[in-house]
């Protein structure tokens, strides 16, 4: 997945697609799925760090978006609205998993290198995941959307419903905190 934010940018024919989906057009809905599913999966994975959970979450978010598409103002873009649904669902899902004591630790990419390299990668992923989980929710959301998925500040501001300046300060604080949390690991 390229770290671009094309998914959130309003596409020219998107209002028409949304209008067609409102009327129950299957092809229009499929077009929205094709447009957003991949990046939505990456975002969901950023929060859940489990491929199957991320897959399920994207499906739920798309169905929820379809159910609520009537509340999307005509002419406004689908992307930020949909990603907001997705991020909220991801945070809720993680809270639910944490309550059940089944929160996922990073599974990561399948092993491709030597066992030593794989072990090192797994450790790094675990440390990163723990450091991210230690951040306040807003800060974590910003760092995932910006540093992992490549969304811009205006896009993140639109998704999270916060001012752009707040978004920048969140990212600044998040990176600082992450650096502190990963200090020991980096010095190894």
């Amino acid at each position, binding site marked *: 997945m390229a770290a671009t934010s094309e998914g959130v940018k309003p596409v020219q024919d998107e209002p028409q697609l949304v209008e067609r989906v409102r009327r129950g057009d299957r092809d229009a*809905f499929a077009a929205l*799925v094709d447009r957003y*599913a991949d990046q939505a*999966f990456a975002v969901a994975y950023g929060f859940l760090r489990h491929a199957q959970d991320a897959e399920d979450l994207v*499906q739920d978010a798309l169905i929820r978006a379809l159910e609520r598409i009537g509340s999307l103002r005509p002419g406004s873009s689908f992307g930020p609205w949909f990603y907001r649904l997705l991020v909220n669902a991801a945070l809720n899902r993680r809270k639910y998993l944490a309550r059940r004591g089944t929160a996922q630790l990073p599974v990561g990419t399948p092993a491709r290198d030597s066992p030593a390299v794989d072990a090192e*990668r797994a450790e790094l992923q675990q440390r990163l995941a723990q450091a*991210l989980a230690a951040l306040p929710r807003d800060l974590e959301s910003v760092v995932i959307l910006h540093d992992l998925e490549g969304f811009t500040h205006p896009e993140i501001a639109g998704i999270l419903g916060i001012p752009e300046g707040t978004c920048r*300060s969140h990212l600044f604080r998040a990176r600082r905190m*992450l650096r502190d949390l990963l200090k020991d690991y980096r010095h190894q």
Partner: protein
Amino acid sequence: MSERYDEAPIPELQALKPPLRSDIERRRARQRVIACAEPLLARRRRAGSSWELLAAWARPGLVAASIALAIVAAALKLGGGPARPVPEPVLLDDVLATGANGSVPALLVAMSEPDVDAVVAAALIETNGNSGALPQEQLQGR
């Protein structure tokens, strides 16, 4: 990035990138979503067609109602409407002045029809040639 919030990104974070999905996995996920969405889409199609049907009937319905209203209005105007005689108000002094033999023919104009008893009583009085006047002895007794 604003200069105030200049904190370099953390390169290690890239290790948390999602695993690449095969085309088969992506296609399967797509099919699953669309299959789940199908009942909702079908409901939207049905709801949409109901509104379209309603909208299709709305215009002829409005035209028909307007025509019916125009016909009723014209009929009322031509027929002069339901004729209901409204009695002229009469001054009390005039009534007392026109009364013969000390009688008062009428004081009030009734707003509704008199009941049967009143009609019979009036008819009996008329046939007795009394003209509504009380007998002399009754007047004297008062």
